[in-house]
């Protein structure tokens, strides 16, 4: 690798406007529902109205007789020719992890349609295929299903009770996952501590809620019947394997393409029964079929996230140095464990945060309940951990009588101590290591942006309107980003002078067309507008993982960078041969390879590609090397650690319970930034999702197991009117773990807001009066806190 690759020149680091925008702004985006597929049938699903019930009878006669209905399937109709859904890629556990911590992760294959039992409201029971969605929904109403209700199970702590209803028949309990991480002697540490706080915090249930719902469309290859699957997915290559495995097809006969995707945020990073049922129907009927999820389906039948209960204990010495952290976590997995250790282990390894904590005693258990399954959503276990840890840090600071930011300052990992080991093993089998970062600088800047001293003065001086209370709160986090195992990147120079870049990553709005073009253009030395990125298509590149886990710039970006550098070497070598000079004497500028001292003698890369193209140029090779093309698989050694400090100044109206964010500040570190405009957009969007969860959004279940937030009238995604005044500041500590020096940033913005805002609201209402243990901080919940404070009762654990 040449030293130039590290130089800060060229396109990396500049806010290039997005290549994606022109089409999207003209209405020429092609999302799943926009694809013109002639004579395509439409699917709809009969879904369970019960949280938990035996299915005693299914009568499809009337539905099948309805004109326009083409097919209706139950599990019994298809079970002989398909397998149950099982996400093998999510379940792989490295041997080191297995040996070191012996995790329990009880795998649970899921029948594609209810197999005599339903375990959550919204579970698919019958698939209807009809001429259009209107008729398909008519048919749903004609299907008669007999249900024999069983006891619902909603609360994750209740799921551990000995007499709890069992969600998966044939198992003894509802414990599907258990992982532990320990370091040092917890009992001694607690006994020696000057301060110990023990609290229970709940992270409530969210829905990722991308603006485009999920969807699948399938066409058959008219020649061989192979399946071309269009899916609103973040992970086309994984979906290909799941479809092929479940339908028992050769994966070579399945092509998965992700068209324009209207947001994913993790919800589209897992594979669902519908993703397999639609290919099944197309395969069986020999017809094109499409399913576009409606909003209520998305809220009830696509995965949920975040529901956790933390029993956390934090201990410090008299000077406020952290001595020990104990956290016993129960995650509500919902009715299936499809994603294994992802969220539990992220919680386990992120609760520590940016702090030095010598003694750790951590346990995370995942339990099954009769609710929709929970899977990774933007942050994936980290916002929950940060909520518990950063709330506990505030309580500890109050107990000591010092400023919350002062307590944090005393415990941050110092930059000169990097790389820092926590003592835990990470999910990839390495010892968890913070590769770089400057946490004190994050905090110092944040305290300045929040003007905490001014807030304190106003609080003391009564500088607020009657009935209003002012508060300030902050939260810090670290995030392991750029998860492996690998990502692919291939770069090809075509004889027409264009550069084709392909990768297994897959954009849902992260501007890959632009930012990967910046990376490739810089690596090779060609102009940005010569780059054509092809991604989200299993036919474009054989292997890939996808865009999840804040990983694409780290993994795909570096794969493209390395492939681009290799192509550059090829171009230099070919040009040297053509020009009769040494490669070292050449440079590539604007797509022309030229002698540094004689630029006018340069050769365009198009000409160099044409030289290699067989048949075009007599005498050229037709063997390997007949094209200027390189493919690289970048395997990161482990995750890179991004970090941030968030804070908010809020005003709480004690009479209405409404929280107004007067300012929200972020100081963020994601290593080297490829496109500052895009990076800021990613962080800001994440922050707004975090604010949504802190104040507005909750997927609520009643004790009967009925979801209560089933439309956008009840699941409250914030609007522009809720976007607060905002400061976004960056520092940059590069990662040494990859050639570009980048860290991931897709999820980060969403991680801290629930904690920062809870801390700010508690500060406003008075930490001596109220204790916030869960969100969202709705007006009603805030009034409950105030009422509880004046009556002396603790209202929060209702």
């Amino acid at each position, binding site marked *: 690798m040449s030293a130039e690759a590290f130089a800060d020149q060229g396109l990396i680091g500049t806010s290039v406007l997005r290549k994606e925008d022109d089409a999207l702004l*003209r209405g020429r985006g092609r999302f799943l529902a926009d694809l013109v597929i002639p004579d395509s049938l439409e699917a709809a699903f009969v879904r369970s109205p019960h949280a938990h019930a035996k299915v005693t009878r299914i009568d499809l006669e009337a539905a099948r007789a309805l004109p326009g209905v083409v097919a209706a399937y139950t599990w019994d109709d298809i079970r002989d020719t398909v397998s149950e859904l099982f996400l093998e890629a999510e379940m792989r556990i490295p041997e080191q992890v297995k040996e070191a911590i012996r995790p329990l992760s009880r795998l649970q294959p899921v029948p594609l349609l209810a197999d005599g039992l339903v375990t959550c409201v919204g579970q698919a029971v019958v698939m209807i295929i009809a001429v259009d969605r209107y008729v398909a929904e008519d048919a749903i109403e004609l299907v008669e299903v007999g249900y024999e209700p069983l006891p619902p199970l909603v609360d994750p702590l209740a799921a551990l009770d000995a007499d709890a209803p069992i969600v998966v028949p044939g198992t003894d309990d509802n414990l599907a996952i258990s992982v532990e991480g320990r370091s040092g002697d917890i009992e001694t540490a607690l006994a020696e501590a000057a301060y110990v706080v023990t609290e229970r915090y709940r992270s409530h249930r969210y829905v990722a809620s991308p*603006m485009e*719902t999920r969807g699948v469309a399938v066409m058959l290859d008219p020649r061989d019947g192979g399946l071309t699957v269009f899916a609103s997915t973040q992970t086309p290559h994984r979906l290909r394997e799941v479809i092929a495995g479940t339908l028992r097809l050769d994966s070579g006969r399945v092509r998965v393409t992700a068209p324009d995707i209207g947001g994913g945020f993790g919800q589209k990073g897992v594979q669902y029964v519908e993703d397999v049922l639609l290919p099944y129907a197309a395969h069986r009927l020999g017809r094109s079929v499409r399913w576009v999820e409606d909003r209520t389906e998305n809220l009830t039948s696509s995965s949920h996230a975040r529901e956790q209960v933390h029993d956390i204990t934090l201990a410090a010495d008299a000077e406020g140095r952290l001595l020990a952290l104990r956290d016993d976590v129960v995650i509500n997995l919902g009715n299936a464990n499809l994603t294994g250790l992802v969220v539990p282990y992220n919680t386990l390894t992120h609760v520590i945060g940016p702090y030095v904590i010598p003694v750790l005693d951590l346990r995370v258990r995942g339990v099954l309940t009769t609710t929709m399954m929970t899977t990774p959503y933007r942050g994936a276990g980290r916002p929950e951990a940060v909520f518990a840890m950063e709330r506990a840090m505030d309580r500890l600071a109050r107990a000591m009588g010092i400023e919350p930011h002062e307590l944090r300052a005393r415990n941050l990992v110092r930059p000169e101590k990097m790389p820092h080991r926590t003592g835990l093993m990470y999910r990839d089998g390495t010892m968890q290591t913070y590769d770089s970062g400057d946490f004190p600088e994050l905090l110092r800047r944040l305290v300045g942006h929040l003007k905490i001293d001014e807030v304190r003065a106003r609080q003391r001086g009564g500088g607020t309107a009657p009935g209003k209370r002012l508060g300030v709160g902050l939260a810090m986090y670290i995030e392991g980003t750029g998860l492996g195992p690998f990502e692919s990147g291939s770069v090809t120079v075509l004889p027409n002078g264009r550069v084709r870049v392909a990768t297994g990553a897959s954009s849902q709005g992260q501007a890959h067309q632009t930012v990967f073009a910046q990376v490739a253009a810089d690596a090779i030395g060609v102009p940005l507008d010569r780059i054509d990125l092809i991604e989200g298509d299993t036919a474009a590149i054989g292997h890939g993982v996808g865009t999840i886990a804040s990983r694409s710039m780290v993994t795909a970006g570096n794969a493209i960078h390395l492939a681009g550098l290799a192509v550059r070497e090829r171009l230099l070598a070919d040009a040297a041969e053509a020009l009769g000079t040494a490669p070292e004497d050449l440079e590539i500028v604007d797509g022309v390879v030229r002698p540094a001292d004689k630029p006018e003698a340069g050769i365009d890369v198009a000409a160099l590609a044409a030289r290699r193209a067989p048949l075009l140029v007599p005498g050229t090779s037709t063997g390997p090397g007949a094209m200027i093309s390189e493919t690289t698989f970048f395997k990161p050694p482990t995750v890179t650690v991004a970090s941030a400090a968030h804070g908010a100044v809020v005003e709480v109206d004690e009479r209405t319970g409404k929280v107004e964010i007067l300012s929200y500040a972020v100081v963020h570190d994601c290593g080297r930034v490829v496109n500052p405009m895009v990076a800021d957009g990613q962080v800001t969007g994440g922050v707004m999702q975090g604010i949504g969860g802190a104040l507005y959004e909750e997927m609520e279940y009643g004790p009967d197991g009925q979801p209560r937030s089933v439309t956008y009238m009840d699941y409250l995604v914030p609007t522009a009117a809720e976007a607060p005044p905002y400061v976004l500041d960056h520092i940059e500590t590069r990662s040494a773990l990859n050639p570009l020096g980048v860290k991931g940033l897709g999820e980060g913005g969403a991680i801290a807001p629930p904690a920062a805002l809870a801390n700010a609201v508690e500060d406003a209402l008075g930490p001596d009066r109220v204790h916030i243990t869960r969100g969202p901080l709705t007006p009603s919940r805030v009034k409950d806190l105030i009422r509880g404070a004046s009556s002396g009762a603790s209202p929060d654990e209702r």
Partner: protein
Amino acid sequence: MPEITLHVNGLEHRLDVPDRMLLTDALRQRLGLTGTHVGCEHGVCGACTILLDDQPVRACLTLAVQADGHRIRTVESVAPSEEELHPVQQAMRDCHGLQCGFCTPGIVMSLLALHEQEEPPGPEEIDETLSGHLCRCTGYRNITEAAHRALGCAGHAGPADAAGHEHEGAGR
């Protein structure tokens, strides 16, 4: 099945549609105008916003038969040429007002109506209009900035000019 006449983007279309067909489906499936997106089908998200007789409305809360004889404009009609974007679209691009782009057509249509109204909208009217659209990607700040820029309403503290907004890291 009634025959209706829709005047869409300057062209007259005669269509047979079922009584219950939503205008979103008529535009998308019958006329191929898939730029009008469907996000919730109960009027909250705003992705399907079109101009009906020059006013922004939810196409998902309008039956196709109700639009019989009316003038409709969709996002496909907004840009003046292949080379040029409308000022509203250009501002959205310049301000990074879109990420996945799914909600964008609805927002463009609402802002277009403000752009065309005789009296230029004030900041409050712009903010009220934008609050009728859900976007899950951007966090809204850049959309608001784009709107204020396109509609000639200066002074909004968007990302480009927010007080205290800094890029202090090395390499910038």
